[in-house]
């Protein structure tokens, strides 16, 4: 009787202490999280909410009065040929970039995985362009592809392909292609690293067993390597798609959206309309459309791609 009373007393003290401790904990957690919370709310969430509001106005970006115009911006987006063109360009660029970057990255990853000499050097060389700013690399490519003095045309000339010489960035037919290929050059190394990590996670025995069973190189790739890379592929496809949808720097330096509107994408038109043409209400409405597109495609892509992943 007496002992159980003591025990009850003890456990009571225990819970009180625990409560005190937990309370102390709570205040610590709050203090730990608060700086991030304040900054994030102030500089990400507040302006995003502001964007939602501004997209329903005809604000020019300068004047004091912000006029509410309902869905007029969205109606204009729906009807604007320029926006449709930008959307089409965004789609072409995104699909080509996702496909080409991933093919290039898988090929490069397999090369540096299999090659016997200078493996690390090759890996660094493939990877290095991803570290440069889009502006710098866009400029270097603009110089290489320049019609009058560019190295690329000079090389074509000297190897007897003079008839291929065109104005790579000034000709509407080739401007988009030039931006896409130079972006593959810049981006593929990043995905290569992810695929390389995936490749190194595939047990060597699987390929050995297959090769004993008589499977050739292509069959091994098709039935072992490729399915087992599905996890890396989900990541790389999502990442390359998001970055392709947001492509900006290269376009700014290489073509400025031109010739005409040939390389104007959604992100570029947002910038042009908002800051060049001082129609920030319309610009934010376009930004909302971009946000929705990214959201929908990302969710969809993750769902679909995860289905075909094989777990080891």
């Amino acid at each position: 009787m007496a002992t159980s009373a003591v025990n009850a007393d003890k456990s009571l003290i225990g819970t009180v202490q625990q409560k005190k401790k937990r309370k102390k904990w709570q205040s610590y957690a709050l203090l730990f999280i608060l700086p991030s919370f304040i900054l994030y709310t102030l500089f990400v969430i507040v302006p995003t909410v502001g964007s939602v509001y501004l997209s329903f106005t005809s604000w020019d970006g300068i004047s004091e009065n912000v006029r509410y115009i309902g869905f007029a911006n969205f109606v204009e987006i729906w009807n604007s040929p320029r926006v449709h063109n930008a959307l089409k360009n965004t789609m072409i660029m995104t699909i080509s970039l996702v496909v080409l970057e991933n093919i290039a990255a898988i090929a490069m990853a397999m090369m540096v995985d299999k090659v016997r000499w200078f493996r690390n050097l090759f890996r660094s060389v493939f990877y290095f362009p991803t570290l440069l700013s889009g502006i710098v690399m866009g400029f270097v490519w603009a110089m290489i592809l320049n019609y009058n003095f560019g190295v690329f045309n000079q090389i074509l000339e000297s190897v007897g392909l003079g008839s291929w010489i065109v104005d790579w960035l000034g000709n509407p037919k080739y401007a988009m292609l030039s931006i896409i290929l130079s972006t593959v050059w810049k981006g593929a190394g990043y995905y290569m690293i992810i695929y390389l990590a995936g490749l190194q996670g595939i047990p060597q025995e699987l390929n050995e067993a297959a090769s004993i069973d008589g499977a050739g190189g292509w069959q091994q790739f098709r039935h072992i390597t490729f399915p087992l890379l599905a996890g890396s592929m989900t990541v790389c496809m999502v990442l390359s798609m998001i970055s392709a949808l947001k492509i900006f720097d290269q376009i700014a330096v290489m073509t400025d959206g031109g010739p005409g509107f040939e390389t104007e994408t959604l992100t570029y038109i947002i910038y042009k309309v908002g800051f060049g043409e001082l129609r920030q209400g319309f610009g934010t409405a376009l930004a909302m459309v971009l946000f929705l597109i990214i959201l929908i495609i990302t969710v969809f892509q993750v769902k679909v791609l995860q289905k075909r992943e094989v777990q080891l």
Partner: protein
Amino acid sequence: MTMQTRKRVGQIALFIVTLLVAIIFFFPIFFNLMSAFKSNAEIMKDAIAFPKTLYLDSFKYLLTETEFPRAILNSLILTAVSIAAQVLIIPMAGYAIERRNARWTRFIFVYFLAGMMIPFQAYMIPLFKELRMLGLYGSLAGPILIYVAGAVGFGCLLYTSFVKGIPREIEEAAEIDGCSRYAIFWKIVFPLLGPVTASMVVLNGLGIWNDFLMPMLVLPSGQAKTMVVEIYRYIGEFSSRWDMIFAGTAMSVVPVLIVFIALQKYFVKGIASGATKG
């Protein structure tokens, strides 16, 4: 052919193909660095030729006659301070979210992650307006706060998943010894998070160093901006002076090259861990 020689031939063929691809990959960078040491006339005359003399005038001009030195300094300050602030506040939040597992922390976690989906273009216009209202337009403090805020989502994701792997017993032992939560975090947990911090520093540092759109928008015109923005300006201004632009781009490439060579393994680890956790 025996199996042995066939393998050997295959290896050599693979090596040659890889080498060719590597040359294509390295060429633009090599071309940029080489052209930085040529005069404008030399570049115009024969873009592909090696420099005849070591022409340094364009570097001299950029460093003495333009805002370039100030832009280099701005880039350094912006990158260093933003990264330091990120490392100071984001791990704390990630740690607290993981360890204090309550309804409100779970809510905050989701709230932070939502930001990863929002592209910068979606909020840049009001952000620009907000900085003016807060009186931060024109100072480096604006971009710094924006960079820290923008890194919260992904940073928390990385840190919470790594904190999970740290045994709680270590912290409990320290608590019994009378350590405060701050001391436990900074003296025990934070050092254990070193690898994550290293990858965050490397990846975000690079992103900030190379960023273009945001600093161009929020730093006022007529004043030195960051290196990348300055180079973009020169492309318009010195449109016929390729030597100048090549020198500017070379100066922005070389530091990245040096840092990359020195910290190569962190870059690779950073991508690998970032990709799988993201």
